[in-house]
C-alpha cells in the first residue's frame, strides 16, 4: 500500500514537471486477482495505479511497440528485476535508448511489495549481479523434475505431445518483450521460410525457432507461459536454454545495457570451428 502511494506521488510529480510523458503501470482488472496494463498520462490516471504482488506481467514490450519512444521523450515504467533485465537487453540490441526510460522498480515476496531503489538501469547493476549469483528460490515444479529425468527420446516425445496442442496463435511471441522483430521469420512469406500450418511439423518448427531465438535473451519473466492459451509449459524450455547459455558461454542476459548479445557476438579466438 505504502509503496503504491509513494509511487503514485512520484509519477504525478514526474508527469507534472515534464520529466516523463507517460508512465506504464498496472490498474485493477476485471476480477480481484487480475491486473491490467495502465498508461498514465494524467494525474487522474495516476490515481488508478495499483502495485501489489499480483502485478506480474513484464510491461517492457510496450516500450518498443508502435513507436512509443520515437519522439525521444522519456517514459516511466514499472518493472520487476526481470523487466529491468529486458530493458538492458533491448538497449544492448539497439531497440531503445536507456536514457529515455525512467524505471519504477519493485519486487515482491509473498504478498509483500517493496520498491527497488534507482531510476536508470545502471542503478540496478548491483542488484542484477546479486540475482545472477544467488537466483531467487523458485518453488519446486514436479513437472520440471519429471522432464529432467527423461532421456532424449522421452523428452522429444514429451514436447511433441505438448506442441501438438499449439494453435500457432503466436501469443507467446506477442507477449515477449524480446520478440520485437518487425517481421518475424514465421510471418515472412516471400519466400515462406516456415510453414504457417499448425500441424505437428509446423508447431515444432515454430517452437524450436522461438527457443533458439530467445536463448541468451530470455529473462524468464514468464509472459509467454502465461499468455499461451493452451497452457504449454513454455517456461521450462526457456529456463533450460538460459541455463545452457550460462553454462556454455558464461552469459547471464540483461546485466547491463552494453552487454554483448551472446548469439550476436564473435570472437577471433573462439574454439568452435562452426558458427550457427
Amino acid at each position, binding site marked *: 500500500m505504502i509503496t503504491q502511494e509513494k509511487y503514485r506521488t512520484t509519477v504525478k510529480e514526474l508527469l507534472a514537471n515534464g520529466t516523463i510523458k507517460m508512465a506504464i503501470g498496472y490498474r485493477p*482488472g476485471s476480477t480481484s486477482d487480475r491486473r*491490467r*496494463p495502465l498508461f498514465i498520462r494524467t494525474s487522474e490516471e495516476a490515481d488508478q495505479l495499483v502495485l501489489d504482488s499480483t502485478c506480474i*506481467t513484464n510491461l517492457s514490450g510496450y516500450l518498443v511497440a508502435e513507436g512509443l519512444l520515437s519522439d525521444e521523450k522519456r517514459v516511466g515504467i514499472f518493472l520487476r528485476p526481470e523487466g529491468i533485465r529486458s530493458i538492458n537487453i533491448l538497449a544492448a540490441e539497439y531497440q531503445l535508448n536507456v536514457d529515455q526510460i525512467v524505471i519504477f522498480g519493485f519486487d515482491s515476496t509473498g504478498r509483500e511489495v517493496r520498491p527497488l531503489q534507482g531510476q536508470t538501469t545502471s542503478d540496478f547493476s548491483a542488484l542484477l549481479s546479486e540475482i545472477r549469483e544467488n537466483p531467487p528460490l523458485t518453488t519446486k515444479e514436479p513437472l520440471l523434475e519429471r522432464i529432467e529425468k527423461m532421456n532424449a527420446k522421452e523428452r522429444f516425445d514429451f514436447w511433441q505431445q505438448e506442441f501438438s496442442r499449439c494453435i500457432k*496463435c503466436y*501469443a507467446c511471441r506477442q507477449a515477449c518483450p524480446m520478440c520485437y522483430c518487425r517481421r518475424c521469420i514465421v510471418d515472412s512469406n516471400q519466400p*515462406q521460410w516456415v*510453414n504457417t500450418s499448425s500441424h505437428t511439423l509446423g508447431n515444432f518448427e515454430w517452437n524450436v525457432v522461438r527457443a533458439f531465438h530467445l536463448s541468451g535473451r530470455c529473462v524468464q519473466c514468464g509472459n509467454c507461459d502465461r499468455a499461451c*492459451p493452451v*497452457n504449454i509449459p513454455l517456461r521450462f524450455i526457456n529456463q533450460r536454454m538460459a541455463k545452457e547459455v550460462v553454462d556454455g558461454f558464461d552469459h547471464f542476459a540483461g546485466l547491463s545495457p552494453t552487454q554483448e548479445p551472446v548469439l550476436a557476438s564473435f570472437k577471433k579466438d573462439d574454439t568452435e570451428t562452426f558458427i550457427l
Partner: protein
Amino acid sequence: MTRILFSDKLDNCVAKWRSAGLTVIGPVQGESLSSYATVEKGTDLHLGMVLPDRSLKELFFPQTEPMLRYTIKKNEIETADFTPPSAQRIIFGARPCDASGLAIDDPLFGWDYKDEYWFQRRNESVIVTIACTKADDFCLCTSLKLAPDSTKGTDVLLRPLDKNRGWLVEELTDRGREAFAIISEYLQESSETALPTVEVPEKFNLDACVAWLQNPENFDSKFWKEISMRCIGCASCTYLCPTCHCFDIQDEGDTYSGIRRKNWDSCSFALFTMHTSGHNPRSTQSARWRQRIMHKFNYFPGKFSVNSCSGCGRCSRQCPVDMGITETLQEISKL
C-alpha cells in the same frame, strides 16, 4: 411427462451410441487443458466444468485442414481433393454458447460458397447441449440476448436434475430425436423438475453499444486507440472464440507439388489482410481491434442478422492483458 436420462446410464448410452457407429465427443479435462474430445466411456466425460478452455468450433473448423494435393507437370496440373473422413458424431455436453456459436457461423460458411468441410461435419454431428447451472465471472450469454439454456444450434437440450442425478431431455430436432431413439431404452418417463439455470448478470446494454458502433462518426473515435493500447495482438481471443472464423489459404510444398491448406487466421495479426503491395489497411493494433468489434457487432449482423458472439467469455478469460468483448463493450456503454 418428460423423459429423463439418469447419469448412471450414461456409460450404457455411450456404449450404445458407439455400437451404432457414432463417435462420442464431449468435454474432457486434460492434464493442463480442457477441450471437447472423443471419449470411450461415459465416465470419461467431465460434465462439471463451466465450459472447456477450447471451443467447439475446432471440431468443425480445425486449426489446419488439407484441401488438395497438387502436382504441377509439364502440360497439366494434377490435383486430388481432401475431404474430411466421414464420421457420424454425437457431441454430448456442449455448452449453449458453444452450440450457438455453430449456428451463428452457419450462414457465414454457406453464404457465397458453401464450405463443404464445415457442412459435412455439421450434417454429421448431433449436438446435445447441457443447460448451465453454474457460470463464472466471465460468462456473458445474457448480455448477448442468449441464455444459459439457449437452444440455438442444439439438437437435444438436457436440463440438469439436482445432485448430478441426470437430465430432463428436450428433443428439438429430428436429428436429435434419431440419436435419442438409439438410447430410448435408458430413458425414463418422469414428472421431475430440473434445476433452475444459473443467473448470469447482464454486463452491458447491447443495443446501446450496437447503436454506437453503427454511427459512422465513431469509426474514428479516439476510444479505439485508448482501449487498444494494451492489446498485444496475441490472437488468443480469436483462436479460442467459438465464432471467429477467419482463415487463410496456404500452399505448402515446393513449386511443383504440395498441399493446399486452410489455416486459422486472426484479425489481431499485423499481417492480416496486408496487401501484396505492402499497404496494410489496418496498420495499427487499434484498427485491428476495432475490426474485431465492428465485425462482430456491426458488419456481421448487418449481413446475417445475428451478432457474431455467443457470450462464452473466452476472449476475456484468456486475454493476457485483461481485455475482451466484455471490457470493450462496457467501456463503449460509458461513452
